[in-house]
């Protein structure tokens, strides 16, 4: 609290790159910074450089819709994201930086029997993994989201029920980035912004040097923690990834007085809605089906997201949409991440997160740091190795629906 009266730099001024680092992390987003943070904190590894091509949090970390949850469909996914939410719960105190994590609860609406099937299945897998998640019905939905139009006889998509996940919620995404960056910086990690990786040099099956627009550095281990560019970086190391890159968009309204206290998601209507602490309604929709690296939004998105939001919240019809943005999203074939070791010995990845990356930041940081420090893949992330695609052993979150924030 007293910190507010002390003006202190969050992180040190940028310096020149050194000639070599024990660990080079490519990507100054939530994953790269979390990994750097846990490397110094849990393993005392401080000779770490985080290379960010623009400014920290400029990619997916600063563009997502800030939703956290762990009610995944697969056992592997549920366990993994549960560990992440648990870390997030203590992160404000640990970083001494309020990340504004609001565990306001997360509702995934079901509009059909088939959707109820999926909800029941997720609820049960979650319950068996110790995750608070259950199927609820319209009466309870109305209590949780009194402003939402729940039982409308003329609804195109009647609300049959919902998967309710009380620990889910929203967090301030930029604060996560800044808090982790400060923590990593104070532990000795170097954060280099405006530092773009232009090439990776391989010798004897290892990545030995990292070329950047600010010079070349030697690296003991290299981590690819990028989103949107993950295949481009991995290609530099000669590691193919089963990923395609798409845009995902979001938008906010002008700030309103509080109306909605939970996160509402409808996969059938392709929309997810929350109201931020500042009062803005924050909405997202589905990924554009075509691949692209061009971060430009579409009019279609604004139209569809508005139409679907108004179906649930007709009173927002005169609320003004203020700003929209697009980010890049790396999709894997089974909607589960690609995490951990690759065929190149000292090159590890955190990639292919689709729309789930931000939710996983702390646990990715913790597990990747452990992998880097010990050379062993932590059990929690073993199912997510890239090798699974060559073996056709998918961890499919697909039936979790088209969009599922």
């Amino acid at each position, binding site marked *: 609290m007293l910190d507010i009266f002390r003006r202190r730099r969050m992180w040190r001024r940028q310096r020149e790159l050194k000639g070599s680092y024990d660990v080079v992390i490519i990507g100054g987003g939530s994953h790269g910074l979390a990994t750097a943070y846990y490397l110094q904190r849990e393993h005392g590894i401080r000779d770490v450089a985080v290379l960010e091509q623009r400014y920290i949090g400029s990619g997916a970390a600063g563009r997502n819709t800030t939703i956290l949850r762990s009610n995944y469909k697969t056992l592997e996914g549920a366990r993994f994201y549960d560990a992440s939410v648990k870390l997030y719960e203590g992160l404000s105190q640990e970083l001494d930086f309020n990340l504004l994590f609001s565990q306001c609860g997360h509702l995934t609406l079901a509009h059909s029997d088939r959707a109820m099937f999926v909800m029941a299945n997720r609820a049960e897998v979650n319950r068996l993994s110790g995750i608070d998640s259950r199927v609820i019905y319209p009466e309870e939905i109305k209590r949780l989201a009194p402003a939402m139009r729940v039982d409308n006889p003329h609804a195109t998509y009647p609300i049959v029920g919902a998967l309710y996940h009380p620990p889910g919620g929203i967090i301030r995404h930029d604060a996560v980035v800044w808090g982790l960056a400060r923590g990593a910086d104070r532990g000795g990690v170097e954060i280099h912004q405006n530092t773009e990786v232009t090439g990776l040099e391989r010798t004897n099956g290892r990545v030995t040097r990292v070329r950047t627009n600010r010079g070349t550095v030697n690296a003991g281990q290299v981590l690819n923690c990028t989103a949107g*560019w993950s*295949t*481009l970086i991995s290609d530099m190391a000669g590691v*193919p*990834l*089963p*990923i*395609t*890159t798409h845009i995902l968009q979001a938008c906010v309204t002008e700030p309103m007085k509080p109306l909605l206290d939970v996160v509402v998601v409808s996969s059938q209507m392709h929309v997810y809605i929350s109201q931020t602490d500042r009062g803005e309604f924050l909405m997202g929709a589905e990924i*554009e*089906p*075509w*691949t*692209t*690296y*061009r971060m*430009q939004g*579409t*009019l*279609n998105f604004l*139209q569809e997201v508005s139409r679907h939001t108004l179906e649930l919240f007709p009173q927002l019809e005169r609320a003004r949409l203020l700003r929209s943005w697009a980010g890049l999203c790396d999709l894997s*074939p089974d909607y589960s991440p690609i995490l951990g070791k690759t065929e190149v010995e000292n090159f590890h990845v955190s990639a292919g997160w689709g729309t789930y990356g931000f939710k996983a930041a702390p646990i990715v940081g913790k597990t990747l740091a452990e992998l880097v420090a010990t050379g062993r893949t932590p059990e929690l992330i073993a199912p997510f190795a890239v090798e699974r*695609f*060559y*073996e*056709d052993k998918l961890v499919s979150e697909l039936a979790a629906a088209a969009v599922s924030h």
Partner: protein
Amino acid sequence: MSFLLACPNCGVREVSDFGYGGEISSRPGAGADFRQLNAYNYFRRNVAGVQREWWFHRSGCRAWFIAERDTRTNRVMFTALPKDVPPGGDSGPAEGPEPKRLAVS
């Protein structure tokens, strides 16, 4: 409603008129091993640059065709029915950035 594509049968339409079929890849023959098969099934080149890809005119004539597009700009170089596609283009070198010109005044 983003960029435009020209269906070889119907003409220019909004991209939302079409279904995307992904980059063109070659299917392994019968002798391929399981690993090669899965590389075909799951791995994509995902190039940042010019690629050839499948599109389906879902809202119109319902024909598949091939487009060559720069994934960095979404500029479409050409579209053609498979039988009319010119040779080459497979993972060729990426083009330079879009030409720019000076503003008026």
